[in-house]
């Protein structure tokens, strides 16, 4: 089932509300603002808009969620989704809002780290098909200028054989095929 986002108030087809409703496959007007999503959200209150306020702004067709931090703090745990009395999956709304914010260039400054992490992750995965946690951590620390983050655990991980620095994880059979199928490019 696909929802258009409900009532067509002032040409809503091209509006943020309509696009998010389509991407998340829900009717934003089904939300009756009970706040159950906010009540159970592990990161609500650390951002700006609360999850139920994100829904309210969408109902009003306001662009405020586009520049909100909350979507970037969403961990995708779906607690909101399994407890919503109206069966709305807000984690999909947050997914859609991040994509919209990227496109509109309205990612808030406070979301810099989360955005960088997601981008590096996806770029690395699309480059070779697989992910190396070392490479991910290294590139992230470098580009986020968090040079020493998590560095203290490095020796323990190396001695326990949990990480390797030779990049073998990334290769595996079929590397060429994967590279061909995936749209990404190896980052310099």
């Amino acid at each position: 089932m696909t929802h258009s986002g409900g009532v067509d108030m002032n040409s809503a087809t091209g509006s943020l509300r309509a696009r998010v409703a389509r991407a998340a496959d829900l009717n934003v007007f089904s939300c009756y603002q009970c706040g159950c999503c906010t009540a159970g959200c592990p990161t609500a209150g650390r951002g700006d808009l609360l999850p139920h306020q994100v829904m309210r702004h969408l109902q009003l067709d306001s662009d405020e969620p586009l520049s909100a931090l909350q979507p970037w703090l969403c961990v995708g745990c779906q607690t909101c989704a399994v407890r919503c009395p109206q069966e709305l999956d807000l984690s999909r709304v947050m997914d859609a809002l991040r994509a919209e914010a990227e496109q509109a260039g309205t990612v808030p400054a406070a979301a810099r780290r989360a955005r960088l992490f997601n981008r590096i992750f996806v770029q690395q995965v699309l480059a070779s098909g697989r992910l190396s946690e070392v490479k991910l951590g290294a590139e992230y620390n470098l580009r986020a200028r968090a040079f020493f983050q998590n560095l203290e655990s490095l020796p323990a991980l190396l001695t326990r054989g949990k990480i390797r620095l030779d990049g073998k994880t990334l290769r595996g059979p079929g590397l060429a095929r994967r590279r061909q199928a995936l749209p990404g490019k190896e980052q310099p």
Partner: protein
Amino acid sequence: MSRIGVFICHCGENIGRTVDCARVAEAAGALPGVVHAVDNKYMCSDPGQNMVRAAIRDLKLDGVVVAACSPAMHEPTFRRATFNEGLNPFRCEMVNVREQCSWVHEDRPAATDKAIDLVRMMVEKVKRNEDLFPIKVPLTRRALVVGGGIAGIQAALDMANAGIPVVMVEKEPSIGGHMSQLSETFPTLDCSQCILTPRMVEVAQHPLITLHTYSEVEKVEGYIGNFRVTIRKKARSVDMAKCTGCGVCQQKCPQKKIPSAFDAGLGHRAAIYIPFPQAVPNKPVIDRERCTHFKTGKCGVCEKVCGPGAVDFEQQDEFVVENVGAAVLATGYQLYDIGDPGAGLRGYPEYGGGKIADVIDGLQFERLASASGPTGGEIRRPSDGKVPQTVVFLQCVGSRDRAKGIEYCSKICCMYTAKHALLYKHKVHEGKAVVFYMDVRAPGKGYDEFVRRAVEQDEVLYLRGKVSRLYEDGGQIVVSGVDTLAGRQMEIRADLVVLATAIRPQTGAARLAQKFGVGYDGHAFYSEAHPKLRPVESAAAGVMLAGACQGPKDIPEAVAQASAAAAKVAVLFSRETLDREPVVARVNETVCAGCFACQEVCPYGAVELNEVRDRQGRLLRRTARVNAGVCNGCGTCVATCPSKSLELAGYTDEQIFAQISALVP
């Protein structure tokens, strides 16, 4: 040659806008057998009806076709007019050119052509109509009430006081229903038992009321005016005639730790027990599933201590047949169970699923607050008997919750939650009462004022938001909620949590409805015949509805509906006999082969066995016969009969085929 009159109604603009009524009249006038065709702005008005009557009188019509709205709306109107002019009313038929034509089409010429087709078909039918006469059925002036809660009690007393004998069936050992469990009632805070128990006694003592407690409706046969109801009187294991209700048996019973249903599981009772001190009848019953004697054959203490020798372990279920002319269903409600909500519904594991002792429901709180309850009216929590210092009330638990399977509002929770919070504050002055709500719906008389009083005078804190989950921690319950108005998460540590759980129909409501042929919705709430104009009748003739079995209701509403249902029964019983529509099936007994396929498919049990005998009384053959008093004219038998020996009066094959031929020449 027939002499048929055709009358086309504009229904103001409703039909006239899309159908060219004058053209329809012109086309109808040219049909063979039609001697008169005319259109009019409002056919149902007095002048319109007079046009019909004048034409019947002056042109000696033998058939009338009215092309107008739905026959459900005005067929009685035009048939009455026809009858008043001396023509058999079943020679008048309606063609629906509004709902089935003008309202659903836009193209005027095409709609007009369709209206002409419809009229032509009906003219062909009416040519073949015959005189039919209403079937008179006798009436048993006695009513059944199913359910002995406040709705059933009110309906029974109103009818009995109007002189109608009443048979009341209650499945529990005592009448009184949920209202007998309540502490005080909103918005006046009068004591529930104080106002209810006199009514219960009145039921028991009323000379016109026969009371069957611990009984259930087993089977329903017959039809409006003539129901034959079989009632199962479950074995009480106590001889009601001998028992004096002294109560010694329940004091001496060694099994004393059985959770009491009356106390919503918070108190205990014995295996032989009177449900509560004001029970009617005030006589005990043995819970055979928990009684040591029934489980092991030992014990028998109650039998030994009973002076009058009333305990009877051998007692069996009894069946009683009662003949009644009407019934009032008042089977009430049950609360949604967060642990085991039943088929099709999802529970609330996130609220502990019923496993946290100090998370209780509204009826349990009523028992805690009630002077006759397990704590004598002191608010003490179930786990350790301590007086809770912080009590959190959650509204809409299960209700308005599509994910749990209940999308409706349970209507009474806003009010009883306000009452609970207020009662708690009255009893524990220094305590903190917090209510999580989504909306406060208090539209009754004095209701909103009551909620404001709780907020403004009794300092109950209302937080707008839903709670994501509850868990036990360090002897308290952690409530993870939100205040959407302040815009922040609210984590509260509570000593007691009270859930306003959804109102649901009683277990077995659907099964009972099927026995009476009463419709019900997806939740098994009984359906009224018309939501506005027939709110207390079911679509099954002679069966009325009262109380929460039809939808969530508070006490005043349940009582009002019960009185209305009683009035409906009184109206029905004001007649000598009942007239039934003669549109019934009839068997051509000379060709019926006696296969009884019709009997198999008849939903009303209207097909009977008929024995054809010769003059010496020897059995020649068996055929089917339709009891016209029971038949509802659905036609299922007609469609089933392999030898075409059945036909439906007013809708014979000949009539139907004539209509089809008129459309597809």
